[in-house]
């Protein structure tokens, strides 16, 4: 009996050592350390944004009144005097989604080792990001001209203006750094760096960051424009 138990136990050992992904000697998720670190960085950054958005919620809950987004965000470039509630921000959202899609396409082309495809789609991803930043600049300027600042606004309590500029600003800063990263990646790809390396994983990692920026926008949009 003892011998039987021994073999049995030994077999289970072998299974632990070779069969499972968690047996050591390789990644349990079949991903490189770089991608894993990018993922966990994004989880961490998600907590940065969560803290800001939750602070927004807390101050909003503590305020007896709040600004009505349909009244604040109702302007559109070149359409002076029109009342287009949420029109411009919908366009911005759409631009950011498309930009994200373009970068996914670049990643997919990278999997096929198609350098021209990566360059093409990455280029449009960068254009989308830059366009979003431009839109945000216009929106900010428009609000500031209308009297909305960090210190006062015509629509409601002080906290609305300061939280709006701080959080969209922090998001915009992320978009900006994402665009810069995308440009760096585009240049490296155009020089054939990744082709020589044999994989386009860098595009994938920077792509993750770029989608994360899009993800955050979903919740910024929710907090400031919808709720």
């Amino acid at each position, binding site marked *: 009996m003892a011998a039987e138990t021994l073999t049995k136990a030994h077999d289970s050992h072998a299974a632990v050592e070779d069969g499972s992904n968690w047996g050591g000697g390789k990644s349990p998720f079949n*991903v490189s350390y770089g991608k894993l670190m990018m993922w966990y960085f994004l989880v961490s950054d998600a907590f940065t944004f969560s803290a800001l958005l939750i*602070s927004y919620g807390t101050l909003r*809950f503590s305020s007896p009144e709040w600004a009505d987004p*349909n009244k604040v965000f*109702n*302007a559109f470039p070149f359409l002076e*005097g029109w009342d287009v509630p949420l029109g411009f921000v919908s366009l911005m959202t759409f631009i950011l989604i498309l930009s994200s*899609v373009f970068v*996914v396409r670049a990643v997919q082309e990278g999997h096929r080792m198609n350098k021209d495809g990566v360059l093409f789609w990455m280029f449009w991803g960068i254009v989308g990001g830059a366009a979003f930043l431009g839109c945000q600049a216009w929106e900010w300027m428009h609000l500031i001209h209308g009297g909305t600042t960090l210190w006062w606004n015509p629509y409601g*309590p002080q906290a609305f203006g300061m939280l709006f500029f701080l959080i969209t600003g922090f998001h915009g800063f992320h978009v900006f750094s994402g665009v810069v990263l995308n440009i760096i990646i585009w240049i490296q790809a155009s020089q054939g760096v990744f082709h020589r390396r044999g994989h386009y994983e860098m595009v994938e990692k920077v792509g993750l960051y770029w989608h994360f920026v899009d993800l955050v926008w979903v919740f910024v949009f929710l907090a400031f424009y919808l709720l």
Partner: protein
Amino acid sequence: MGHHITDEQYKSQVSAVWRATIWLSVITIVEVVAALMWMNYVEPGTSKFLLNGFFIAASLLKAFFIVGEFMHVRYEFRALTLTILTPTIFLIWFIVAFLWEGDAWKNNRQRWDVQIEQGWKDPAKIEKHTGGHGHHGGDDHGDGEHH
């Protein structure tokens, strides 16, 4: 990873991404339309509780598409997905406790009868803060004044 994929896999992946794009766009449009309909057709002062619940659910659905499809999580190992998503559980109590607190501060402020200055309702102040620039924006921010 630098693995090469077959044409078929490639095609299905590309179409999956465009499908997700359409979903994201449609959800956003529905959200905005819902907000506008609410503004135009629902009596002011009605509780937005259900509508806000819908907005939050729709946003979570959008997040699902972005994380699942764009960030490729649907195709990763289940264990990796879990390590990424589990920490977000901590956000639940983070949100509940903070908002509960915010609500309590509001009640405290009202109870202590701290006069919250309603300065933003005063039309004279708008002039002061825009410094005469208010009309160059060519916008219609007047709603705020007469609100």
